[in-house]
């Protein structure tokens, strides 16, 4: 820095000195010399430029420490003192001042020059401007700090593993998922640490072999997405592995859940038994589940993209379009039913529940064809049964049993009755429907409660024929219990049948009696005939003749009796089979005609006969009715006994709704004990009296055939008797009063 450097001489030395000088001047660093007083003894041009000093002259003699920032001058002075004290050269960084006062950062290396005789002691100061480097370093450090902060806080693990597999770095919040603190595993062998996780060990080995490896590892439930990057030196040799692991456990779980969910939905869609479909309001199928094939014969693929309107029954098109427009208006449609054409051309009934979502329709559907058929069949069957119920001739009543708290059947409620019920019972449905039986029938005890309770309890049907006093009718009743607590009664009015049965029974009895008496009474004369004929033969053989005539008379009488019996029996048998059509009969005239026929016997016994005037006209078979009057009058004459003033009266009287006719006499009369038996066939009160015992039987039969009754009134033997009978009057005519 001084142009007056004293030791530089001419010649080779001078050349060397110049060369050195040039060298110094060429250095990028500023070179200066500082003397003992701390003043600058020399400054290179680079130095002048660095410190902003215009010329060497201005630099020489300046205090060197003045170029150091005041706050660092002490440290710099110390540095100088060290160097003067002979310590080895060292460099230090300082904030330096330029001539204009601006600052820069420089690295200053201080070294003491070799001591030589005649030469002042000097310190060489080499200053390098490191402002830029320092700034770069600061930026780098800042960057590293940022990076580190990121690493430390990332939900990841950053790690470095060296060639031996030993962790050199292990940072990141995600370490917590593995149970490690940051830095905890540094110094440990990754191979050792992860020996139970072959995929980790394998990945590290591959990365150390130079491969970039990315794997997803499940480390005891914590799932990491890890990238292993080979770390190379300047020569390209792999010296370690840098890795970053990101904890994706949550994401993975969410992904799996989402996948499961969508699989579930998909499985549901394909495996649901119901018909599922997604369609649009434009009328097209978007997606269908396989179930549709079973219903419509088309596969889901056949239908997807097709217009569903094409398949709808023409009659259902309008209602379907209405439903679609409702869905387009974002209104859900439930319980909509229409018909879809099956691939085979038939139609299936489909019931829909549809939900609108924008232009999409989510629908579940059900093939209700079979159900509808069943319902249809059921309805038809129900109609048929109802028609049967309404038109059957049997009365039907449905009941519900009513129990008390102890479970005892106490009554039953009449739920429904059919028209035949009304007809048979004369009770209107309105009157009994919903009523308790005791109320509906007005009985203290519900009719047949015990029987019906047994039917309900056992479920076993019950049949019975019974006389129902409240209605005075005979019924045949069947009871069944179609379900617990309920029972139905089906009944028919068998009153007519019962009456016919009763009549039949009576007829059978009568027939039996008839046969019996006929055989008896016909046999009786035979015994007489044969007996006396035998006796006659004996007498003749013995030559006795005194009994011949009376015995022959007996035989003749017996024969007559037989003939009479046979003719009467014939007449009796004819009564039921009327040869003459019934008609109006003027009873008074009939009585008078009959009396004329009997004029002989009446006159002979001196009987006075009176006929009541104003007889009503009756309806019947005139000839038979004449037989009645004739027999009765004949009987009256016959049993007049020893009555000195015999009288017979033919008359009638009104008795309630009936008209009673009678033939009264004042003859022998009949003991009340025999009032019934006198009408019996062949029953005679007197063994000796004439006649066959058929007369009154014939009379009774005729009256019965006419629908009337006959009976005897007599106060007893000797007091006369009255035979009474009823006869029907002509339907249209009122009896003449």
């Amino acid at each position, binding site marked *: 820095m001084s142009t007056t450097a004293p030791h530089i001489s001419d010649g080779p030395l001078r050349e060397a000195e110049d060369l050195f000088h040039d060298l110094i001047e060429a250095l990028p660093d500023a070179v200066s010399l500082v003397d003992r007083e701390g003043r600058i003894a020399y400054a290179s041009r680079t130095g002048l430029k660095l410190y902003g000093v215009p010329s060497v002259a201005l630099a020489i003699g300046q205090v060197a420490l003045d170029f150091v920032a005041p706050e660092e001058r002490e440290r710099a002075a110390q540095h100088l003192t060290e160097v003067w004290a002979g310590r080895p050269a060292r460099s230090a960084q300082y904030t330096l001042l330029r001539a204009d006062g601006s600052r820069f950062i420089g690295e200053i290396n201080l070294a003491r020059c070799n001591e030589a005789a005649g030469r002042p002691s000097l310190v060489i100061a080499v200053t390098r401007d490191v402002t830029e480097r320092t700034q770069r370093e600061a930026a780098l450090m800042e960057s590293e700090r940022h990076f580190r902060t990121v690493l430390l806080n990332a939900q990841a693990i950053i790690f470095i593993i060296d060639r031996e597999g030993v962790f050199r770095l292990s940072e990141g919040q995600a370490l917590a998922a593995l149970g490690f603190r940051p830095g905890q595993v540094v110094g440990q062998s990754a191979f050792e640490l992860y020996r139970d996780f072959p995929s980790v060990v394998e990945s590290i080995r591959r990365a150390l072999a130079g491969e970039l490896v990315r794997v997803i590892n499940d480390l005891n439930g914590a799932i990491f997405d890890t990238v292993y990057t080979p770390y190379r030196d300047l020569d390209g040799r792999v010296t370690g592995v840098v890795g970053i692991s990101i904890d994706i456990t949550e994401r993975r779980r969410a992904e799996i859940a989402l996948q499961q969910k969508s699989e579930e939905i998909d499985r549901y869609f394909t495996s649901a038994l119901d018909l599922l479909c997604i369609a649009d309001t434009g009328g097209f199928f978007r997606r269908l589940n396989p179930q549709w094939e079973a219903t419509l014969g088309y596969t889901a693929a056949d239908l997807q993209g097709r217009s569903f309107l094409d398949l709808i029954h023409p009659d259902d098109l309008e209602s379907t379009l209405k439903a679609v427009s409702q869905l387009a208006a974002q209104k859900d449609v439930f319980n909509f039913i229409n018909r879809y054409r099956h691939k085979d051309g038939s139609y299936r009934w489909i019931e829909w529940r549809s939900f609108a979502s924008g232009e999409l329709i989510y629908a579940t559907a059900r093939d209700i064809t079979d159900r509808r058929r069943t319902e249809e069949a059921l309805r038809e069957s129900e109609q048929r049964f109802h028609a049967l119920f309404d038109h059957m001739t049997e009365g039907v009543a449905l009941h519900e049993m009513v129990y008390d708290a102890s479970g005892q059947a106490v009554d039953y409620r009449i739920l429904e009755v059919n028209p035949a019920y009304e007809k048979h019972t004369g009770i209107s449905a309105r009157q009994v429907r919903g009523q308790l039986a005791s109320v509906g029938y007005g009985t203290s005890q519900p009719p047949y409660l015990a029987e019906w309770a047994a039917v309900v309890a056992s479920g076993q049907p019950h049949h019975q024929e019974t006389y129902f006093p409240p209605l005075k009718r005979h019924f045949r009743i069947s009871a069944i219990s179609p379900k617990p607590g309920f029972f139905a009664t089906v009944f028919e009015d068998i009153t007519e049948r019962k009456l016919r049965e009763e009549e039949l029974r009576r007829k059978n009895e009568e027939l039996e009696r008839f046969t*019996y*008496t006929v*055989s*008896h009474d016909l*046999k*009786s004369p*035979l*015994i*007489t005939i*044969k*007996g*006396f*004929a*035998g*006796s006659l*033969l004996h007498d003749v053989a013995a030559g006795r003749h005194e009994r011949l005539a009376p015995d022959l008379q*007996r035989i003749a*009488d*017996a024969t007559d009796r037989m003939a009479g019996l046979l003719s009467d029996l014939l007449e009796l048998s004819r009564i039921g089979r009327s040869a003459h059509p019934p008609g109006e009969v003027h009873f008074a005239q009939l009585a008078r005609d009959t009396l004329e026929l009997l004029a002989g016997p009446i006159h002979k016994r001196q009987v006075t006969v009176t006929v009541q005037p104003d007889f009503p006209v009756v309806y019947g078979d005139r000839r038979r009715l004449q037989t009645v009057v004739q027999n009765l009058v004949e009987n009256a004459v016959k049993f007049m006994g020893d009555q000195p003033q015999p009288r017979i009266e033919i008359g009638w009287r009104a008795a309630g709704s009936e008209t009673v006719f009678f033939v009264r006499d004042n003859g022998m009369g009949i*003991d009340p004990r*025999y009032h019934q038996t006198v009408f019996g066939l*062949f*029953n*005679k*009160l*007197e*063994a*000796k009296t004439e006649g066959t015992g058929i007369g009154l039987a014939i009379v009774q039969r005729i009256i019965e055939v006419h629908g009337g009754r006959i009976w005897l009134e007599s106060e007893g033997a000797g007091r006369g008797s009255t035979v009474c009978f009823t006869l029907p009057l002509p339907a249209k005519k009122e009896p003449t009063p």
Partner: protein
Amino acid sequence: MNGEPLRILLVEDNADHAELVKRNLADSQVANRLFHVEDGEAALDFLYQRGAFADPAQFPRPHLMLLDLRLPRVDGLEVLKEVKSSPALLSLPVVVLTTSEAERDVARAYAYHANSYLTKPVDFGQFAALLKDLGFYWLAWNRRPW
């Protein structure tokens, strides 16, 4: 053999039949005394010795009753029932003699404790034999209570 003649009460409404019984019994070698009534009422009166039959000398108690079933007024079965339910009469042997061959009558007669049931034979010879045997049996062989 019993010393006393057999007293028989014949209850028969048919006079011809009664005559036949009478003749045949008379022809038999059985000492008997026949009483004849024509209906059940009279039969009971006879047995109870009342009404027209009140005189025990004239109408003594019979040893045997021949009873027809079909009778006017009181039926033969009624008579039988009455006799067999009366302590005084029940030991009287009652032989039903009737035209009826009906099983029902046979059954009912025995049900009312008839002692025997005979059907009148149509054949005269049989009729005679029946009454002969009947008389012999009841007079000669049968031990009577009184």
